[in-house]
Each structure stands twice: as structure tokens, then as C-alpha cells.
């Protein structure tokens, strides 16, 4: 199939007017600061964060100290969520929803319940992100639990992205898989859009902070006229180089067999995406929207790591400076929201079945996955708290950013998703397992759509699907929809 080339925009940035998004300047707001001067409401933002591996909640003999011991406001902070007490008690902005589950087929071979998963832990990508039941793999032993639907962020982006530069952003802090010998199960992804035929297409996250930085501030013009001219020349060069690459690649497409052609077309589309971005530069930062300091080169990538023996351990393997990466990416994501460069984002802190080495960030010489299996429950709280600290930092930053007469957080719905819970082990038959999707708990922050803040809400034991939290967040940003097989929001999240 011959691709139609999109016409190039010939106007310069600035002459395009409404073609590019602009940060929300005070001048654009009405007198009360709660709506746009033109009468439209302030835009809502939808952000999903994800922590991988058994960042579970407790119901078993080895409590993780994640689920607060009391419900309601001012809930007590166990070790796993202790960072919520920091940042001027950001707990007041974060609601805990516990008692969630992703239903599992009771016995392998049984039908998979709606929105549910098959018996194969770490392979519940489809229910967790799209609310859609795994298909039974064919053949069964293939472990092929593919994603069959779009994820909530893409459903939301279709509805609320407007004319922002980036319809959605995908970031990931964990730089590498670190153990590529383990089946992928899409461990490194959390966003899928639907193509023209309604088929899910993965959106690969940016894992390089520097690349994320370069893209976000592409339209920035340095004050120094010499530097400004240099940057303009560089952008021009990029356009010309890509134009040649594009022409040659497009000429190659028709010379290829069908499989190869599909692959090269995908590559060609990605080249076109860069060209389109260069032709529609993100707006230059103004006002509260600021260009951040250049993060410099990314921390070096660490090698694969599969060991756990404290006596035989290389603390540098399996770790790529994620502490730095997560902070830079969090700051970039925050600024992308401030600048209204995007209204929808997903940010994977750590991957599904994460093998990241936590020695440098917690002092415990383990890969996350191995640690979760090793009976290190108390120490594992430190790993959970590491994730929660970065979540708390992000929420506090949104809270402390004025927008209109309130804060940026007021216009956000942020959900922190965890891969697992703690409860019956469908795989092992154990009454309590860290690899379980029973007794899950997720976190919600933001005031969009009247979301309540700072409450511990208990879903009726395992009756609410985690997707009900996503549906609530979708509703908060004005998107009333089911998600996959799951319908209904959690009323308590709206007071």
C-alpha cells in the first residue's frame, strides 16, 4: 500500500497560531482564574504511574505495611508509604484505594473471568492496563498473553488531548530489562493505542532522560543570539537530513517483500513523526512554563543482572542510575503538564517483573524480582518506599504549582498503579503469595472532577477491579466510559 505523504507545513512557528499548543498564560484565563478567557474550562490532565514486581499490599502473614491500618482521612503511614508524610504531608493529597483485585481463572484451563487473567503471573498486562481479559493462549504452553485492547491513557488522549503538541507522553525510568532470559510479556510497556483497523499498537516509552529533555524543549530559543542562530541552523539541518532519509526510505519501500515492507513502513512512520514535530515545534516556554536545566548525558547503562547472593554481588550490574533517571523524568513530566505540552502521560517507574538491582537505592543487594521471592518482606518495604517517594515528590510538585486560582494538581487525575497485591497464589496454590492479584491497592491523587483527596478507601473485599480506579480517574477528567470488560467507577473516590 502506497503511503500518502502529508503536506509539509510551510508557515513558520508563530504564524501557525492555533496549530500549536501554548502554555496557559494568565492572559488566557478569565477574571476568576478558573477557566479560559474564551469560556472553556481549564484542561484536565490524566497521568498514570506504574511500579513493577510485587509492590503489593498486605493481607497475609508478612505485612508490607502498605495498606493503612485505618480508613478515612489522616490514615496511618506504614513503612511502605512513609514518604507520604514528607513533602508537607502530601498524604493530604493522596487517596489510597485498597481491596482491589484482578480476577483470575480458578484453575488453569477454566474460562478467564471478564477483565481477568489467566494463571501465569506477570502476564496480566492486558487486564491491568486495558481492563480486558487475557485470551487463552494458543497453544496453552506458548504463554502468549498478548494485549488486545487500548489502554486507558490512550482512550483518554483521544478525548482530551486537544491540540497539544504531544497527544500523550510515555516515559520509563527503569532503563533496561536486566534479565532478558525471562519471557517478555510486554514487561516494558504500559500504553497501547488502536490503529485504523482497531488493532492495539504499543507505544514505546522514552527511557532516555536526555532524549525526553531534547524533545520537550525543542522549540526553545536561547537568549544569546549566537546560540539562537546555532539552534536554528541545527533544526534546519535536521530537517534536511531527515528529508533525504525520508525520500530514500520511501523509495525503498516498494522494492521489499511484504514482511520487510511492513517493518520498514513502521520505521518510515517514525521518521515522519520526527519531521512532523520539527515542522510543528513545541511552543517556547513562557511564564510558569520554564525550560529546565539540561540534565546532561544519561547515567551509563548497567549490565544484565540475575544474582542475589550478597557474597557474590556486583552493585553496579543491573542498575543504570535509575535514581537520577526517575527524578529527571519526573521533573520533565511535571513541566510538560505545566506547559500544556501534553494532557495525558504514562510513566513506568519500574517494569513488570522488574529485575532492577536495588543495592544502590536501598542498600539491599538484590534484584527486585529475586528479593520479592526471598522472604525479604521487611526489607522490601524500602523498595516500595523508594517508588512511593518519587510518587509523593511528583504529587507535591503538582500541588505546589499554581494554575489559575488553584494548583495544577486541582486539574489532574493521577493514579499510581502497582503490579501485584498479596493473597491467594493461583499459580502455586499457596494461601498467601506475593505474586497475587488479590488485595491490590492503588493510589489516586488530584482534584480533577471533584476527586476526593487524602482518604483511605476500602473497596469491598476483592469486588472492585483495579480498572474501576482507572475508570474513576477517566471520569474525573470528563471521560465517561467503560474500560475493556470493566464498567463502573468507585463512588467513594468522589466523596
Amino acid at each position, binding site marked *: 500500500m502506497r503511503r500518502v505523504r502529508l503536506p509539509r507545513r510551510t508557515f513558520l512557528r508563530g504564524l501557525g497560531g492555533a496549530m500549536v499548543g501554548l502554555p496557559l498564560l494568565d492572559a488566557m484565563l478569565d477574571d476568576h482564574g478558573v477557566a479560559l478567557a474564551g469560556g472553556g474550562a481549564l484542561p484536565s490532565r490524566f497521568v498514570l504511574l506504574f511500579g513493577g514486581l510485587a509492590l503489593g499490599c498486605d493481607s497475609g502473614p508478612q505485612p508490607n505495611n502498605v495498606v493503612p491500618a485505618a480508613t478515612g482521612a489522616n490514615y496511618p503511614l506504614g513503612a511502605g508509604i512513609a514518604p507520604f508524610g514528607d513533602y508537607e504531608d502530601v498524604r493530604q493529597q493522596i487517596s489510597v484505594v485498597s481491596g482491589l483485585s484482578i480476577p483470575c481463572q480458578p484453575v488453569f484451563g477454566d474460562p478467564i473471568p471478564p477483565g481477568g487473567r489467566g494463571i501465569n503471573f506477570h502476564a496480566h498486562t492486558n487486564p491491568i492496563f486495558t481492563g480486558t481479559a487475557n485470551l487463552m493462549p494458543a497453544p496453552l504452553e506458548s504463554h502468549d498473553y498478548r494485549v488486545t485492547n487500548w489502554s486507558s491513557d490512550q482512550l483518554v488522549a483521544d478525548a482530551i488531548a486537544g491540540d497539544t503538541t504531544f497527544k500523550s507522553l510515555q516515559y520509563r525510568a527503569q532503563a533496561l530489562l536486566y534479565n532478558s*532470559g525471562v519471557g517478555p510479556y510486554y514487561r516494558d510497556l504500559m500504553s497501547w493505542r488502536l490503529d485504523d483497523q482497531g488493532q492495539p499498537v504499543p507505544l*514505546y516509552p522514552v527511557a532516555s532522560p536526555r532524549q525526553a529533555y531534547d524533545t520537550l524543549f525543542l522549540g526553545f530559543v536561547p537568549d544569546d543570539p549566537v546560540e539562537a542562530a546555532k539552534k536554528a541552523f541545527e533544526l534546519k539541518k535536521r530537517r534536511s537530513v531527515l528529508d*533525504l532519509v525520508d525520500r*530514500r526510505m520511501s523509495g525503498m519501500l516498494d522494492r521489499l517483500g511484504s514482511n520487510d515492507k511492513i517493518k520498514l513502513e513502521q520505521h518510515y512512520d517514525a521518521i515522519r513523526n520526527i519531521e512532523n514535530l520539527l515542522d510543528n515545534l513545541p511552543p517556547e516556554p513562557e511564564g510558569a512554563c520554564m525550560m529546565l536545566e539540561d540534565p546532561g548525558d544519561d547515567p551509563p547503562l548497567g549490565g544484565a543482572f540475575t544474582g542475589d547472593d550478597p557474597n557474590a554481588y556486583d552493585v553496579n550490574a543491573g542498575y543504570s542510575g535509575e535514581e537520577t533517571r526517575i527524578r529527571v523524568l519526573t521533573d520533565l513530566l511535571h513541566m510538560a503538564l505545566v506547559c500544556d505540552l501534553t494532557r495525558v502521560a504514562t510513566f513506568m517507574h519500574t517494569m513488570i517483573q522488574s529485575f532492577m538491582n536495588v543495592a544502590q537505592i536501598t542498600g539491599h543487594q538484590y534484584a527486585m524480582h529475586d528479593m520479592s521471592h526471598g522472604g525479604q518482606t521487611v526489607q522490601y518495604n524500602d523498595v516500595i518506599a523508594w517508588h512511593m517517594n518519587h510518587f509523593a515528590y511528583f504529587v507535591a510538585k503538582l500541588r505546589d504549582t499554581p494554575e489559575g486560582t488553584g494548583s495544577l494538581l486541582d486539574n489532574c487525575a493521577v493514579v499510581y498503579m502497582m503490579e501485584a497485591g498479596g493473597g491467594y497464589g493461583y499459580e502455586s496454590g499457596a494461601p498467601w503469595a506475593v505474586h497475587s492479584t488479590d488485595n491490590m491497592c492503588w493510589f489516586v491523587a488530584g482534584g480533577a472532577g471533584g476527586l476526593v483527596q487524602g482518604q483511605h478507601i476500602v473497596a469491598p473485599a476483592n469486588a472492585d477491579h483495579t480498572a474501576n480506579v482507572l475508570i474513576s480517574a477517566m471520569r474525573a477528567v470528563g471521560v465517561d466510559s467503560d474500560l475493556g470488560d470493566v464498567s463502573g467507577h468507585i463512588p467513594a473516590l468522589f466523596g
Partner: protein
Amino acid sequence: MLEMGSMRKAAAMARPVIATPMVLWLALAAAACRDGGGKGDEAGESGSASTGGSGSATDTAADSTTGDVPPEQDTIARVGMRRLTRYEFDNVVRDILLDDSRPAAQLLPEDPRTPFDNDYTLQVVSQPLVDGIEVLAKEAAERLLADTDKRDTVVGCQPSGADDETCMRDFVTRFGRLALRRPLEAAEVDDFTALALDYAGQGEDFYVGVEVVIRAMLQDAEFVYRIELGTPVEDQPGVFALSRYELASRMSFFLLGTTPDAALLDAAEAGELDTADGVRARAQMLLTDPRAHEHVDRFHSLWLGYAELPHPQDLTNAMRTETAALVERVVFEDKASWLELFTATETYIDALLAEQYGLPAPADGAAWVPYGDTGRMGILSHGSFLSVAANVGDTSPTKRGKFIREQLMCQPIPPPPPNVMADNGPDPGAAECKVDRYQVHAVASCAGCHDQMDPIGFGLENYDRAGQFRTHDIDNEACVIDGEGEISGVGTFNGPAELSQLLIDNDLLDGCVTQQSYRFALGRELTADDAAFVATLDEDFAAADTRFDELLIAVVSNPAFAYRREDG
């Protein structure tokens, strides 16, 4: 210990009960377990036949390899477009830009391991990949221009000014041939030169023009991908004869892990690769290149899983050095039978590894130390090999057995049923001693497969997950490890030396390494369609006294290696 002669294949020796390894590998896993419960699924293989070409090649026939012997139809392999792996990308940047900073390892997404890193059926295109290549191209060009010596070498001429068209054209022609692995057509040279001169003028600097050429070339479809267009073969729909340059690329990436250099492209241009003898002669030359030695080491480290090891850096380095030294000695110094990897009676270790193995330390640095009667022999005694396929905290007899079955014997075991958590061994509370705990696998529904794996692993159980000898279970002296093992249907053994001998005596290794090499050469899993080629490789390997260098040469000099069957 072992007499050299016993390593030779004994034609009269009875074949093992199990059918030839290749048949099992190619027929997938069903036969590997008595009670397997269904076929495994080879990732990425649709199994569907090629649907034939659609006139996709427009190259002239003039430069295609004719070959002095036409290949057998059924030996021509299906091969699709392959993206340079991160490793290859970095090698190419090193070789054509004299830049050993290995930027792809930092900027591009990981390649999945199968265990090899070059399975094109698993390669996905993503925006971060394409963005990363753009950044890489820009920075590689900047690094080159910042180093005037390297710059002048790569550019190859001294420009008289920013508008020196002759020098620019010269550079585009020469660099383009290296980057795109074929001579550029005149119109292509015009295109790149026009862009370069435009920017040299705007920047008032010849080298701004050089920069844009490098940036465009490194993002070019034909740089990023190994695209084989070839020439359609008459009356054979979907079959293409590779051009000489495409064959040169196949040889170079397989033997050296990198792009063909100017000398190899010259040889191709001169028609030296048009005959099997010519290819053979050139392959022999390539194998003297240090990059070939490194690549052979890397092939083994990927295949046997020890490319990364879960140990402190000094121990990891010592283990990698040990195994690399053995591979180098057997394959390149001694040009001995590849099976000597498994029968070496001494090993190259330093004091750290000597202590790890309980061997006398060399006086100074690293040296070859005899194993004596320690029960160790060859690569299966190395810490590198013994470190792979372990569980959390201890060895896994199941995973070791599976690893040996699948990787060394080419007999796939189906994945565990989805209701089995393979992360851990059997429940630690089930019995005091590990060997008894594994009796949980003795029930009918498990035994079919586990009998093929666990007894192999228990034969190595005296060696822990860092290659250290031990006499009992971890923290339990009451549980004495007897080290008795068995390859079900083949024979019993105790420890790595006896395991190696058993594998060799039953011809289980040589029929597998041919498949693994061919798999690495094609960049995908093998299927039943590849059986004919592998059969010829088996013959060639045997005829060459099972020398590994000869196996590599046999792959590239096979007439079918100069052809391609369209993938889909």
C-alpha cells in the same frame, strides 16, 4: 584421562536412543518429553510457506553472484530484512568512523536474547529506537569532526574550500560505499553531494557538509537494515540470488560481527566471491582478523549464556577470561576439533579462580593449570558455564538440565505448564534434602519432561552456581550430594568431565553446534525447512575433523548462502 583419538566421531558407535538432535529441534518439542502435552511454539515462526516474490528486486543481474555450483532448492534459506543489532551498530561505527565509544549500547533499545541477540523476527520498530538513531548519528558526526586526524582519514581528501565539489564527491563515494555496503549509483552520489555542498555553503565550512552526509547515511534504511534485494531467480518464485556485495555483507556480519571493509568490498567487486572457492579463500582470510576471534568468543558466550554473569566484577572477568582463552586456543591456535572445548585437561585461570576451583594458583597472573583428577574437564567445568541457569540463591538442577538439553543437545523441552511457577525450585519445606524435594517432579504429569532435565542437573550438583565444588546442600551437612547424574536414554555420569565424555561419545554435541551456528548466521530460529542445509553442514563439519573455523567457512561457502528465499 582422555585420549585425543576418542574425540573423533566413531562411526560404528550406536546412535543414542533419541533421534538425531536436529530432527528433534526442528520438529519442535513434542518428542522431547514422553508426556509433553503439546507442542512448543517457536517465537516468531509462522510456519507458513513463502508466498513468493512480487517483483521486488530491480537490481541488474550484472553484479549478482552466479556461483559455480547452483544450490539445491531446499537448502536456500528464508531470510528477511535484518536490523543491525546494538552490538553490530557499535562495531560498524567503530569501523567506518574510527569511533570506539559504542554509542548504540547507550542510545538504542535492547535486543532480545534467544539466546542470540540477532533474531530479526523479534526486532520491533519503536519511536525511541528511531529517535535514538537520529541522536546517535548526530553525535557520531560531531565526534569525528572534533578529531582532525580521524576526520581527515575518514574524509580522505583535503578540501580546497567549503565548496570543493571534487573532494566532497570523492568522500560521498567512498564513505557511502562503506556505509551502505555497496557502491553508490551516480544519482545517489549527486543527491548526497548536493545536500552536503548546500550545507557546506550555508555553514561556510566544508565539514558541515561532511556532517550532514554522515548523519543522513547513518539513518539510511540501507545502513540501519541489512536489506538484501538480489536478483529474482528465473522459474523460482520468491528466490533471489544475492548481489556480490550482499554476500560480502552476509559473510562479514556472520564472521566478524560488522560491516564489510573496503578490501572485502573490493574483492566482491572483482568477482572473487562469485565462486565457492573464492568465498572460502576470502573467509579464511577474514578469520585471521582479530574481530573474528572476538566474534567467535561472543557467539559462545551468547549461546551458552555467560555473556553476563551475576558475580562481582573481578570474578566475572576472571571467568570470562578463562573461557575466552579456551575458545581461542581450541578454535584458532590449535585449530583442533571443536570438541576439545569439552575435553581440555587444563584451564587458564588466575589466583582468584584457582581458589574458587580448589586448584593450585599460578605463580603470577593467569596461566594454564592442569585439572588433575578433580573431576573437572573442559568448558562445562568453567565457572562461566556453571553460573548460568540457576535459581534464586542456589543451583537449579531442572534449569541446568533444561539448558544442557536445549542449548548443547538441541533438544527443546516445552515450557512448563502455565500453572507452574518456574521462578523457584520445589517447596523448601517438602523435605530436608534438595534431592528429595525434587521427587515432587516424579508424578506422572511432571515426570515426562523433568526426567529429561533434573537427572542431568543433579549430575552437576556438586558444583554451585559460581563453579565452586561442594559436598553437601547449602547450610546442611546432613544432605550429602552424591553428584550422580543421567542423560535419560543415553547414560549415567558424575560431574562435568563424565558429562562431557558422555555427550561426545554419543555424538550429541557436534550435531547441535552446526544448528546453533546456522541459527546465528540466519538471525532466526530454524524450522523444518532448514533441515537440508543443516544436513550438508553436518557432513562438512565431520569431514573437517569437527573444526569450528571450518564450520564457519562451510556455512558461508555453501552455494545456498548466496541466495535468499523471501520472508513472507
